[in-house]
């Protein structure tokens, strides 16, 4: 068992015994190979269910809005940034949550594993140090975890939680990443090429809204797509409407999205939203010098006005 997983269980158990929290939200082993899943623990002895590994892909801060108790929450770098956002936007109270920070070297992208297996079913996966062993029918291969990292993790600049009450293990080193190289390359393409890409991606969307529902920043009591008086959005999955949904969601989360990648990871139809989200994040950074979820005090750029805000769009 990794050292910080052991520590995580001990810390969580103590928090419940000492009644500092009523509930721990963390990860447990899932029912499929290499899968973990969110878990809700109220009894100290159940904390042995908690796991921490490179497959803890869910951003648990989503659940903060669903509970009313005092919560201990396991948070990676990106999750902690989402929590900062939720505190700033008055969705959760800092004093109601105890953040168990976990330094995160990156999450494995299960879609990359699916590609490697090419139609075979993953029967077993064993994680060890920086490698992972994949077993399928007539297939066995050991791969570097680095090669399987999710795109958001590959470009992540906050492997260590930005806000926590206790940290599991020590902070890990932060490699210099070329954060926006893929976005810049994409942005340099002709507009018809980019348009074709977005059309192709969103054409697969089945409007299950998993991307929206999993997003910690998407907490509108009623999403505009669900409104019926007036109806902004047809139920018929016209491509133009589907595109509008994804674009509006991106704009609505501009300056708030921390690029945890949860929306891309949950998509059953492999719709890649990174080019929209990451580009918007880049724009916000360049226009307003603001990075979401890194500072509890700094005012969100979309909720404030500064005299030197860029206003080239006013002709």
């Amino acid at each position: 068992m990794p050292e910080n997983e052991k520590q995580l269980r001990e810390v969580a158990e103590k928090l419940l015994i000492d009644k500092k929290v009523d509930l721990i939200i963390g990860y447990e082993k899932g029912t499929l190979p290499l899968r973990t899943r969110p878990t809700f623990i109220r009894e100290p002895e159940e904390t042995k269910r908690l796991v921490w590994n490179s497959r803890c892909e869910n951003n648990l801060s989503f659940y903060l809005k669903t509970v009313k108790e005092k919560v201990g929450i396991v948070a990676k770098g990106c999750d902690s940034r989402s929590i900062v956002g939720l505190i700033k936007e008055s969705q959760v109270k800092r004093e109601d949550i105890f953040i168990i920070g976990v330094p995160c070297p990156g999450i494995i992208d299960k879609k990359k594993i699916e590609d490697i297996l090419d139609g075979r079913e993953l029967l077993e996966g064993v994680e060890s140090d920086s490698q992972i062993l994949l077993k399928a029918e007539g297939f066995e291969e050991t791969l570097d975890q680095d090669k399987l990292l999710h795109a958001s993790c590959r470009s992540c600049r906050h492997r260590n939680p930005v806000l926590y009450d206790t940290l599991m293990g020590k902070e890990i080193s932060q490699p210099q990443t070329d954060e926006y190289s893929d976005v810049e390359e994409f942005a340099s393409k002709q507009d018809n090429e980019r348009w074709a890409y977005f059309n192709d991606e969103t054409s697969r969307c089945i409007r299950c809204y998993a991307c929206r529902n999993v997003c910690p920043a998407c907490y509108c009591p009623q999403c505009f797509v669900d409104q019926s008086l007036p109806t902004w959005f047809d139920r018929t999955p016209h491509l133009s409407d589907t595109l509008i949904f994804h674009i509006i969601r991106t704009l609505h989360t501009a300056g708030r999205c921390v690029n945890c990648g949860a929306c891309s990871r949950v998509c059953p139809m492999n719709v890649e939203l990174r080019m929209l989200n990451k580009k918007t994040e880049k724009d916000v950074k360049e226009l307003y010098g603001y990075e979401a979820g890194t500072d509890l005090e700094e005012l969100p750029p979309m909720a404030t006005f500064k005299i030197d805000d860029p206003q080239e769009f006013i002709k």
Partner: protein
Amino acid sequence: MKEKIIKKEQLGRWLEKLGKEYEIWAPVKKNGLVFFHPIKSAKEIYFNFLNSKKTPKDLFFPQSEVLFSFPKEEVEKEAETILPKSRIIFAIRPCDAKSLALLDQVFDSEDYRDPYYVERREGTLLVGMACTHPQTSCFCTSMRGGPFEKNCLDLLMVELGDDKYLVEAVTQTGKDLIGKDDPFEDAQGKDRERLAKVKKETEEKVKSKVVMEGLEEKLDKIFDSPFWDRIHQRCLGCAICTYLCSTCHCFALLDEKVNSGVQRVRSWDSCMFPGFTLEASGHNPRISNRERMRQRVMHKFNYFVKNFGETACVGCGRCIQNCPVNIDIREIIEEIKNE
């Protein structure tokens, strides 16, 4: 009926011939996803698939369809021809074919006959491909099905080794698809022996077992149980489980404005969405994921059983594989029984 054998290299020729009369839908792979799509040549088919990402149910019950349109006060026209050309769904898995038997009970019953569904259903032949690589999340054998189940199929094909398929006609229409001048030979005794062996081996591979006995009665008793408080906690409330389910069939009827007037549209809906039961008054009887998840479980394993004598689940495992938070229906069933 007598089984036939076709060499894999002859498959293209056979499908080409069928393609003259039918539109052929078969599994293709694009963007890492396998789904059913019309094909022009057998070369496009992706055979190495466990199952398709989306079920072929949308070929009968599309995600969205116009039922009729009306420019002003009067209804101008019913939907145009629903199915312009007869279709063959090639290599449909037995679990997905069986799900159509369940949908038939909803859309084609004595009480109600849905013309849109029925026309598509009657105009479509189903050529099944036995599932020789069931996944660990498959539990079809617990749901009155199996990897070689023939329910609703016209033909069942079974891969026998690297070079050939055994083809069994299930219906007369299926038999007509394998005519005299087609590249088929009669199956020999050794082929049948091999078939029996493959079938036995495959059925043993379906390791997941779910005991359904007593489940319906148990669900009658636990509607108000705190069990549901616990079970729904991790649910995100998205529609992956319902939209990728081969038997979920709930829909919404809405009027949509288009340039020429108004269309009455039928679209998939999901009991996991808050708007599913939102009433005009603003009241919502299913106020949280707790009630919504209970509804999904009750509909599949209790209400549907009461109405039609079967569970609305074929054990394909898609909801297990695709749930972003790994909610596993097998576990839920187990926990209900222990409740």
